[in-house]
């Protein structure tokens, strides 16, 4: 990979963030959607403080997995076929396109996690423990989910696909991230070692990243 690779990826990140700034899909739609999902759950299961403190962390991570993946989906991040053709003709390396899109999705997911996290802490009275490892978990999950969403989006790559297809495909594949994140929080709470869970999540990140980069050009040529 030449320096041009990272330049191109950076340009893609810049373009995606500009798009988000203009459209505001994540800020105005995806984040509120995740937040109101957190609001609805206690209306349904009951507002007993002990119950909410128990289910709070798990609910938060489920919302991140199911709703957070939406930052990789939708008109802001998917390019139309003519736009993809233009990118190809301009000589944009599809692998750097993939890395760029996954990076911008990661950044947006981090914002999603933080805003929705504040809502979760407020509504469910979650106690925040082990902040350094918590931050590590948030970052790894963001990267892993962004990679899954971006790669799945490239695989599906169809405007006629239902809006739920990418989330459907990502959901089962996100289980290692979900378990890693929730078990890490439990482990921090109980004082156990969480290293194995963290390594599991890192493994997910590495595998999806490698597959994504290697299949970027073949997927574009399909």
């Amino acid at each position: 990979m030449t320096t041009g690779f990272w330049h191109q990826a950076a340009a893609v990140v810049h373009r995606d963030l500009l798009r988000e700034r203009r459209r505001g899909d994540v800020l105005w739609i995806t984040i509120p959607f995740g937040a109101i999902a957190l609001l609805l759950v206690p209306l349904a299961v009951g507002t007993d403080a002990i119950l909410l403190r128990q289910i709070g962390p798990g609910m938060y991570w489920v919302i991140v997995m199911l709703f957070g993946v939406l930052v990789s989906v939708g008109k802001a991040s998917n390019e139309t076929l003519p736009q993809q053709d233009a990118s190809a003709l301009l000589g944009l390396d599809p692998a750097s396109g993939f890395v760029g899109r996954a990076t911008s999705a990661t950044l947006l997911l981090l914002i999603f996690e933080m805003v929705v996290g504040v809502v979760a802490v407020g509504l469910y009275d979650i106690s925040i423990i082990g902040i350094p490892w918590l931050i590590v978990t948030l970052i790894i999950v963001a990267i892993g989910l962004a990679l899954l969403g971006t790669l799945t989006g490239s695989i599906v790559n169809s405007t006629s696909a239902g809006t739920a297809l990418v989330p459907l495909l990502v959901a089962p594949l996100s289980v290692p991230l979900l378990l890693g994140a929730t078990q890490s929080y439990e482990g921090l709470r109980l004082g156990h070692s969480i290293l194995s869970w963290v390594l599991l999540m890192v493994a997910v990140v590495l595998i999806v990243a490698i597959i994504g980069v290697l299949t970027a050009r073949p997927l574009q040529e399909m």
Partner: protein
Amino acid sequence: MQAQTRNRQWPWVAIVLSLAVAFTLSMVSPADSVQGDLVRIMYVHVPAAWLAYLAFFVTFVGSVGYLITKDLRWDRIAAASAEIGVYFTGLAIALGMIWAKPTWGVWWTWDARLTLTAIMFFVYLGYLALRRTTDDPVVRAGRSSVLGVLGALQIPLVHFSVVWWRTLHQPPSLVRPDGPAIQDPLMLTALTVGVLAFTVVYGSLMVKRIELIKLDDRKVAIEQSIERPVAGEAVTVPDLGASS
């Protein structure tokens, strides 16, 4: 020109003046016998909550007004009020939480009023998200006004369902969002002045926000009306001096 600029700034002046008065009263009024100085938070929380509901009502009125008259001025009122309403709803919730933490030890309680306010916040937010999806003022007004009416008419049903739910599952009786009733006349004055001041703030923000909407619509209209000559017009037949 100077006079025009000065005239346009009066809303900001009104905001600063009214808040200065309200703040002074909030600080000199006595502490509450039960809540202590925390009651002063009520002097901004209650006005913010009042404005949240007022703004929501104005959005409803504006939406109905547009649907009946198709005059965009109604839509501008609805939209400006929705954005200001989102802000005050969020502020009311935040201030309520800041009051609740030292009072009860928790940031959030699931009583009917708080839950309803939170739901209202998301209804507003959705309205604003919808408006962002189109630039065309007429299309945007049409869609927003239907959503505005839908949201407003649904709110009583949401209110009933949440209140009913709460009466079936009584929260601890300690938990009342307003705390003990305020009776001391100085405290009542501080509260009333706070409500009045925030209403002035709402009115001033409405004036300015509607001004911004008109400016944005004018800008979009200008951008869309610029005639771009077809390339061929740049090429003219050379004048070779032949008489027609």
